[in-house]
């Protein structure tokens, strides 16, 4: 069992979820309440990673944020390290790749809140910010939590995009999925099996948690 790879996976998933908790929440709420020209295009772009092969995303990441790209050079100048083959780059690409997994349940949860409930809160004297904290957030709680758990689980299992953007650097970018692949390549079947079984149990627990959160319990 490669605990170093597990630690990287957990760290990567946690950072991704922390960033998505803000980003996906903002996007989901914006898309749920606002009607604007080109909304369907924005929705399609957010959902794109669901259908896009991870390698395609990885390719574009390398193309536009790689060491030869202008953005990549700028990043390297500011932070004195490249974005590709680094943990930071991995977090960035994971956020993009897991965005629909976090956004979709949150979006559905916000859409399920009737407009009249928000308006009732305003009529009660609550400001839009108070309405968000006291009414919208608790009512969308299940969708928000399941979105975050789903994106955590999804990041834990990422392979293609991680390999392309992060490579396979132990204790830096080597996640559990990469480590299992590595063990299989080096014919260490026993380690691969242990790690695969561990990941299976972990994924089962996470999905159980998602189901528990999504299930509406009587008050």
């Amino acid at each position, binding site marked *: 069992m490669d605990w170093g790879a597990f630690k990287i996976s957990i760290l990567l998933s946690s950072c991704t979820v922390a960033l998505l908790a803000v980003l996906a929440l903002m996007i989901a709420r914006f898309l749920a309440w606002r009607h604007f020209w080109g909304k369907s295009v924005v929705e399609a772009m957010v959902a794109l990673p669901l259908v896009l092969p991870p390698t395609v995303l990885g390719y574009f990441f390398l193309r536009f944020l790689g060491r030869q790209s202008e953005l990549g050079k700028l990043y390297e100048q500011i932070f004195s390290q490249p974005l590709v083959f680094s943990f930071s780059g991995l977090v960035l690409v994971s956020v993009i790749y897991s965005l629909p997994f976090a956004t979709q349940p949150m979006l559905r949860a916000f859409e399920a809140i*009737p407009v*009249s*409930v928000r308006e*009732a809160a*305003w009529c009660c*004297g*609550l400001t839009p910010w108070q309405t968000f904290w006291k*009414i919208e957030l608790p009512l969308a709680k299940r969708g928000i939590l399941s979105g975050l758990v789903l994106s955590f689980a999804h990041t834990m299992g990422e392979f293609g995009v991680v390999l392309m953007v992060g490579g396979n650097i132990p204790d830096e970018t080597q996640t559990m999925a990469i480590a299992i692949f590595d063990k299989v390549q080096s014919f260490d079947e026993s380690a691969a099996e242990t790690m695969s079984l561990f990941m299976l149990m972990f994924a089962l627990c996470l999905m159980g948690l998602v189901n528990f959160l999504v299930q509406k319990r009587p*008050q």
Partner: protein
Amino acid sequence: MKGLSVLVRQTTPIPLKAEFICNVGELLAIVGPSGSGKSTLLRCIAGLYTPEKGSIYFNNQPWLETENKINRRVQQRNIGFVFQDYALFEHKTVLENIQLATKGTDKKQCVKSLLQQVNLEGLEARYPSQLSGGQKQRVAIARALAGNPSILLLDEPFSSVDAVTRRKLRLEMLSLVKQLNIPIILVTHDLNEASFLADSMVVLHKGETLQQGIPEQVLRHPKNSMVARLVDVRNLMTAEVLQVEKKHVIVNWQGNLLELVKTKRMNQGDVIHWCIRPMDILLHSRLRPSKGERENAVSVRIQALFSIGGLVTIVLELINAQNILLQIDLSQHVVERNRLQVGETLSVSLVKKAIHTMYQ
């Protein structure tokens, strides 16, 4: 002026051309068919929707003046709003729902007294999902009143409950609103509800206010045939003015000559509308002809009889124009005593004073 005055104009997306006032302590009902803009108008007053043009004043204070770009936010207007679906906060208890809207220091005492007022004592700890439709409605009313609102807006508050609960809630509402000294606006498409609860009524059609007045006056004396149709006047007819006298006119109605009270505008040759309430049509006894027989007597045949709760509605067709139908309401015992049956020929009087005339 003390109270609320509303004037809104808009062409799209929802046409609005409304103007009305609601005094302090008055319950004003806005009635009209579905899609006539009733709820939009209510949302304009609340500040939840801004019309293209308009002005809304409460106690002479501007809430909306589009010309001067004044538009007070909904939170600044201090509105009590009961939504059609109640819009209760499902994650909060009854107590929390009401407490959220309560202002001032002694919130608990305020909530307690409100719960008492709406007969909800003992249900404080329940969640909305554990309440019946009637209880939810009471919570919505308590919450709307919790902030001591300047005005109370009710958007079809009885539409989601059964008929029995509705009748009970209407009675409760009537006693509750009498205690409030604020303008109350009720949106409804139920004319009976409006007549029962309201002090004043506004008829709205395609966003335009057609008539405002006390319910009895609007229902008995609609301003024109459109209002008459909207308030479901049952015997609405058309006639041509044949002769104009000093105090009355003679009109031709489907070959029958009727004498009607003269109004200022009537001229010979005018096509007018007239209506008479079903309870105002006099049935002539076949055994003892009444005096009324001489007043606008018309021969009719019974086409159908419908009995609901001791009241019988009889559909009558004119002998000389069978496609013209009159409706008359009689009590069950009158129908039985006169042995009225389908196909029977009768004579009725359309009493002059009971006929209301109007133009297009």
